[in-house]
């Protein structure tokens, strides 16, 4: 099969990292070779795949002028998922965007196993503040983009903006994922939105306390609560992503239409 290299975009705090790690775990359960690359200076993408442990980030090591090797920066987590964290400067100092560019360049140079992966997930921060944060896409590393949103106005507004951005840089959208915040008619709203921008709704993930409980203990839902219903949803989503072979250059909605949709 062709390697899938995906990135999940969406409003800050909407659940990108937790969705990414749960999908990674679900795919690993299915026997896929998976890598997750955290591109957030917070370095919080892979922690639930590593039993709550934090790993050295690429930029931590580059900063110390260490000649980094694959084993220094690629750490195996749950069911062999390869975890990488880009890292970055402290908030308010230096240039995190430049950091992502540099770190990913280095990763690609030293990491041989990257080519053997079935699925690579780039977990990016919510707010794309400069060119560095879209570097994975811009440099052709990502071939499928997904957008995560709830049915609320602001997350949809952000999703809509991301659609504009994707169209501008000629990157197709492979689907919308709804991460519920328990809004009325939520699934219907997000489904409608997906269709109107020319895409499709991939999954509806309910808001469940267990997601946060597992996270707090340092695990994915798939590892800690494999029998929960939400684990089943992540499995379905993983399956949908791995078998998805259609994508579109998204259009975007007028603000008035967005408001109407969420009214």
């Amino acid at each position, binding site marked *: 099969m062709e390697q899938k290299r995906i990135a999940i975009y969406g409003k800050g705090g909407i659940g990108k990292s937790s969705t990414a790690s749960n999908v990674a775990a679900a795919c690993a359960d299915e026997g896929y070779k998976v890598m997750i690359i955290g591109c957030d200076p917070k370095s919080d993408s892979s922690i639930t795949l590593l039993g709550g442990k934090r790993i050295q980030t690429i*930029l931590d090591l*580059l*900063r110390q*002028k260490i000649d980094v090797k694959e084993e220094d920066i690629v750490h195996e987590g749950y069911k062999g998922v390869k975890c990488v964290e880009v890292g970055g*400067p402290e908030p308010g*100092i*230096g*240039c*995190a965007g*430049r950091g992502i560019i540099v770190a990913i360049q280095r990763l690609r140079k030293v990491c041989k196993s990257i080519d053997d992966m079935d699925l690579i997930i780039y977990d990016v921060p919510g707010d794309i503040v400069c060119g560095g944060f879209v570097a994975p896409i811009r440099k052709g590393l990502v071939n499928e983009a997904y957008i995560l949103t709830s049915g609320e106005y602001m997350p949809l507004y952000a999703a809509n903006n991301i659609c504009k951005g994707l169209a501008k840089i000629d990157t197709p959208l492979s689907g919308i994922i709804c991460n519920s915040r328990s809004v009325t008619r939520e699934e219907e709203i997000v489904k409608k939105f997906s269709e109107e921008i020319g895409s499709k709704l991939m999954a509806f993930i309910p808001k469940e306390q267990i997601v946060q409980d597992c996270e707090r203990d340092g695990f994915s839902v798939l590892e800690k609560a494999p029998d929960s219903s939400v684990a089943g949803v992540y499995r379905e989503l993983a399956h949908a992503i791995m078998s998805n072979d259609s994508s579109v250059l998204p259009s975007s909605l007028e603000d008035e239409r967005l408001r109407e949709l969420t009214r």
Partner: protein
Amino acid sequence: MAEKDISIIHPRPSSIVAALYTLRDLNVDVAILHGPPGCSFKHARLLEEDGIHVVTTALDENGFVFGGREELSTLLCKVNEMFNPKLIGVVGTCASMIIGEELSEPVQDANLDVPVIGVEVHAGYPNNTKGVLIALESACDAGVIDDEELERQKVLLEEATNVEKRHGAASKEYLVPSRGDLKYKVAEKVINYLKEGKKCLTIMNAKKETGYMFADITVAINEVAEQLGVSDNVINMANVDDTLGLPRVRHHATSIMNDFREKGIEIHEIIGGMDEYPITGEKVSELIAEKYNDFDFAVITGVPHAIPMDNLQNMDVISVTNGPRQVYPLKDMGHSNVIVEIDLHPKTLGVSNIVESEFGATMRELTKDMQDAEEA
């Protein structure tokens, strides 16, 4: 007048470089470039010729990502030990400014007894005089110059920018560099004019230290006139008022005046300080209208494009510049000959006496040859 928003595509010195030269004029002993190694290298080297130390924090990829606060404070301490400076300048670059580096924090970290002027500048300003302005404002904040001097400099800078837009390096989107007219031909013309008893105006309107070489042209014309017995036909104007400008600039004026005096050359009209080249034009125009209207030709050196043509219409105008891109704009203004003193600037750094110009040397040689031929 040039369009306000033309985009100039020929290479020009940046605001960073302009800030460096300004720090030099403020007599800093050390200038630290906070940015990538190699930034502004060529000018940094020239400034070393001029006696100031220029060093760099040499920010690398790590520096771009994590910032260079520590690198800068460490370097401040290091240069303090190495060079024992009385005044230090720190200059920003694109790289450090884009990532939002603060220059004041590392200065505090280093906690030196020496005053430090921090100049938050990058190379992205369309007019490089912006670099001078930021440097001067920072110097004022650091208490190195007073408000009065800052205000005076601001006026000069604005005029300097206007002069460049009107007829200078910022007058066209692209200016072709040129080596100008043959020095030999023009020297011959000047000598013949003098021989014919024509009345000559020399106008030196030089930018700061470049005056060390442009002054030589004034000297050479006077020497030739003397040998031809027509000294009285030459009137000299020069911007060598040594009571105006930053310390180093005043010093240049004093040095050049001393040399003129030693060589027995009288400057009949002092038209301003050595940083006033953008504003001397009006004064020169007035003087010509008042006293020198009947002169036959003028030799203008330094920043000739700052002198308006209004009262020069009846004269043959010959100009000497050090900017190869200044040739065509000057011809467009109506100058009949334009000469370029190639590589003038490096030769005027680190000196405190007049240095010989190629045009001056050519005039001297040619006069000798002509006299030898007449005697034979």
